[in-house]
């Protein structure tokens, strides 16, 4: 009874909300990081089969805001429609871009509603929201629970722990990083989640937004160039007989 509606369990938990967070962990990885002036989102492309095209995980919300999702793509699409609508309404009334911090709160409030009505279910998608406001670039994570947090860098989805470990080591440098360094770090973090699979431009998508740079998905050629430059620096590190970093082996959940 308690597990099928968004109502309390005897132990004081909302199972539906927790199950929704599990759904986020099933999706393929998405990563975000930001500096003072730029924010980068990257995602791992997953296709249902070799014959199909891959799921779209990165959405442009407005010229200054974009999101990456992990979890139920359909819920993500619906939410991105809501976000786009909010942004455009604000722009119409105020001729000015909606500050990303305010958009994120509105989204969180919308998600919270679903945790408090027994006839609704929480949205099964986690969103990494990258955007600009008056104080620069920001990265937020919105959970199905209705919580939101601001991050310097974050990763969600399956095998994201590997990416998080990498980001935890390097996050202190991000604030002052250049745009190119941020993109390299994002791709490196994506590489960590692939656990040995080769990183190519067909397996990942990268998007950037910055002060003076509208949100856009980078074209595949540029992404491949960055990947190639990554590999060159890696080879050099190997040849320099540097210590091999321990890649924490992770028990990956069933990748659906």
């Amino acid at each position: 009874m308690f597990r099928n509606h968004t109502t309390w369990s005897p132990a004081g938990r909302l199972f539906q909300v927790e199950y929704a967070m599990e759904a986020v962990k099933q999706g393929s990885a998405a990563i975000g990081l930001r500096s003072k002036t730029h924010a980068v989102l990257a995602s791992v492309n997953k296709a249902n089969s070799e014959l199909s095209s891959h799921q779209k995980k990165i959405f442009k919300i407005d010229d200054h805001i974009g999101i990456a999702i992990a979890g139920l793509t359909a819920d993500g699409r619906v939410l991105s429609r809501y976000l786009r609508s909010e942004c455009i309404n604000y722009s119409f009334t105020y001729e000015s871009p909606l500050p990303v911090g305010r958009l994120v709160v509105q989204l969180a409030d919308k998600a919270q509603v679903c945790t408090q009505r027994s006839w609704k279910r929480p949205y099964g998608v986690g969103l990494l929201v990258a955007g600009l406001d008056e104080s620069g670039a920001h990265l937020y994570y919105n959970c199905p629970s209705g919580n939101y947090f601001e991050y310097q860098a974050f990763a969600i989805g399956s095998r994201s722990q590997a990416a998080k470990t990498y980001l935890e080591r390097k996050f202190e440098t991000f604030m002052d990083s250049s745009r190119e360094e941020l993109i390299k770090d994002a791709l490196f973090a994506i590489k960590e989640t692939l656990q040995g699979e080769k990183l190519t431009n067909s397996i990942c998508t990268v998007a950037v937004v910055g002060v003076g740079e509208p949100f856009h998905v980078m074209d595949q050629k540029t992404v491949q160039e960055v990947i190639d430059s990554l590999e060159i620096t890696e080879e050099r590190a190997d040849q320099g007989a540097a210590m091999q970093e321990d890649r924490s082996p992770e028990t990956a959940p069933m990748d659906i």
Partner: protein
Amino acid sequence: MNSIDATIAEKGLMSSEMGSERTLYPYVTGTSVIGIKYKDGILMAADMGGSYGSTLRYKSVERLKPIGKHSLIGASGEISDFQEILRYLDELILYDNMWDDGNSLGPKEVHNYLTRVMYNRRNKFNPLWNSLVLGGVKNGQKYLGTVSMIGVHFEDNHIATGFGNHLARPILRKEWHENLSFEDGVKLLEKCMRVLLYRDRSAVNKLQVWCLFPFVTSAFYPLFS
């Protein structure tokens, strides 16, 4: 659209029936407002008169008000509608402040909000009978714009409403330049207000002059002819 509104409108087309009323003519009005950009910010002047038809009835009406941290609004036309607009803006700024997140509504945003309000009312055949001047400075950027009661809006380096359009703008066009100092700006405004006092019958000889640069200051300026 509400179906109730539709049936009432059908009954008497444009006439006032129960629940559906509209502004037909203004009662207590203010005359011109003049605004200019100067080197460091914005200067605005308006007299303090509220006319009741041809009677110069009220002589201490404040027609210039600061809005939020960055803007100044001046209004000519129906004073009660101006007070209504101030209530809307008060609520707008309040909600903006409640976010408490380092973002604030600047003069451009307030101007566009007002444009939407005025145009919306005009579409309902129930206008707010004002011509508004909205000026402000945010992050060093100066902004000066106007909205009329039918929603016509634009920005410029110098703005005037009402009679000011006919009497003050020629002076401003000739004598305004990019690097007006504060003193020269005030002198220019004073010159315009003097001409208005001579020639506009609804002008009174008591002025409000506001200056907006990063902070807002005001002066009450009795003008003797």
